[in-house]
């Protein structure tokens, strides 16, 4: 009788067929086939299945689907993954927290501290709330804090730039129209007469270029180091490359440092993954600027290519 009552428990057995017989939900049956239920529920469903053809068939179908999906567990790689430890450590060392990052970290610590204090004084009310401000969560409080901070920053930036622009415009307008009604100063329209344009084609020494700058340590650890010089500081670049066999492609974002220089290191897993070309696209330049490095040789990898040769191709509209 007790067993019958447990089987009729609406918590466990919600679905009913035409005959009025209660059945467990499908998700419970699947969980049963996967061994994800506690002892009580497992035995309860087991008893039900023994006398219910419908649920037995359903379990059989789930077992069939499980046998397909479990193949994922047996997926093995033909070769092991190359270690990413060095690459991550290097990127981590290069990383410097931005001001926004530091501010958001401080806000989080303040939030945690405030929450702990509140929990100490109002344990019943505050302790039960599940508000979090962690990096992975997208809860309302964290979003609200960041949105408000962003708005405040936006207002401050707008005010600062507005003031600066106002000061500038005040200085120029003082010379143009010292007094009187509001006037619109139209900048002079450039005439069709040819004027000397600023230097668009820099001298060879100031041309941005990329080259390989592998160190001995790079070669021993199967890494390739690409260096770029004469780029505009602060510009954002996209570096992309493709291996000889065409199987390994990658695209990475880089920022040029104050010395007009950048370095990028990537892992070479085997000779097939040595890039056949490397492109760097400076998309901060209007129209984009593409710098190319071909004929790449790496250590003792068999390649018909000779020493690295630098080629610079400024294209107004690059098509990667």
């Amino acid at each position: 009788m007790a067993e019958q009552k447990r089987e009729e428990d609406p918590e466990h057995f919600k679905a009913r067929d035409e005959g009025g017989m209660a059945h467990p939900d499908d998700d419970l049956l699947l969980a049963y086939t996967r061994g994800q239920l506690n002892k009580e529920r497992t035995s309860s469903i087991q008893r039900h299945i023994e006398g219910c053809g419908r649920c037995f068939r359903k379990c059989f179908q789930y077992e069939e689907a499980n046998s397909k999906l479990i193949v994922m567990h047996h997926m093995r790689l033909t070769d092991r993954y190359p270690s990413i430890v060095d690459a991550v450590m290097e990127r981590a060392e290069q990383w410097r927290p931005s001001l926004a990052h530091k501010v958001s970290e401080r806000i989080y610590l303040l939030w945690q501290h405030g929450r702990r204090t509140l929990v100490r004084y109002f344990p019943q009310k505050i302790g039960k709330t599940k508000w979090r401000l962690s990096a992975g969560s997208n809860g309302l409080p964290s979003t609200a804090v960041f949105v408000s901070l962003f708005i405040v920053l936006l207002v401050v930036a707008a005010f600062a730039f507005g003031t600066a622009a106002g000061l500038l415009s005040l200085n120029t307008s003082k010379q143009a129209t010292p007094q009187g009604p509001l006037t619109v100063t139209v900048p002079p329209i450039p005439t069709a007469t040819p004027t000397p344009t600023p230097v668009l084609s820099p001298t060879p020494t100031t041309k941005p270029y990329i080259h390989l700058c592998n160190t001995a340590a790079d070669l021993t650890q199967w890494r390739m180091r690409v260096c770029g010089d004469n780029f505009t500081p602060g510009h954002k670049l996209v570096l992309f490359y493709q291996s000889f066999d065409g199987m390994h492609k990658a695209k990475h974002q880089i920022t040029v440092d104050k010395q007009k220089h950048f370095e990028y290191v990537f892992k070479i897993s085997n000779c097939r993954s040595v890039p056949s070309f490397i492109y760097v696209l400076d998309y901060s330049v209007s129209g984009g600027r593409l710098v190319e490095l071909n004929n790449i040789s790496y250590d003792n990898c068999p390649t018909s290519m000779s020493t690295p040769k630098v080629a610079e191709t400024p294209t107004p509209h690059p098509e990667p």
Partner: protein
Amino acid sequence: MVTDVQVVVERLKARDAQTFRSLIERLQEPVTGYLHRLVGDREVALDLAQDTFLQVYKEIGKTSSDLALDAWIYRIATNYGLRYLNRKRLKQFIGLEEREAYDENLMVAGPEDQAETRLLVQEALSMMKPKDAAILQLHYGSGFTYEEIGQVFQMSSEAVRKRVARGVEKFRAVYGKKVPARKHVGTPVNSVQPRDGT
């Protein structure tokens, strides 16, 4: 009581390089494997795994000491994987990218028909919603329990149970369509149609 995980989290917060290195060494294989199965591309998976660990390094300061570290790392990896898949789908939809064949590096040990099953399973999963596919990957591929998946996705284990069941129903529907299309006779075709008709 301070647990080992809490000690690790505190050391990571102090930017201890050795702890960070050993964390990567411990988790790089399973996380990269999970991402590889999810996105179906070895190189992309390696890149995403790097990004995942770098994000851990950057954001660890914003977490509390009672953090479930592994689940949090898998959550970051999942977010990166899902973002990649969503962008890829968008590119395919607007015609910027063509559908690619599956990575042959993902092999299945065992008889030949398992390799065929593996391809069909990968194809079927790629046709499902990325989040559903990720949950099935974690449960069947990485062997996570419902509770562990709940920690990754910040859901209750009951919600995960329902989500897995829905995912399996969808998988059965897609897989059932795939098998007759390929005229594959090695594996039986599911006869029962899904309830939601997907």
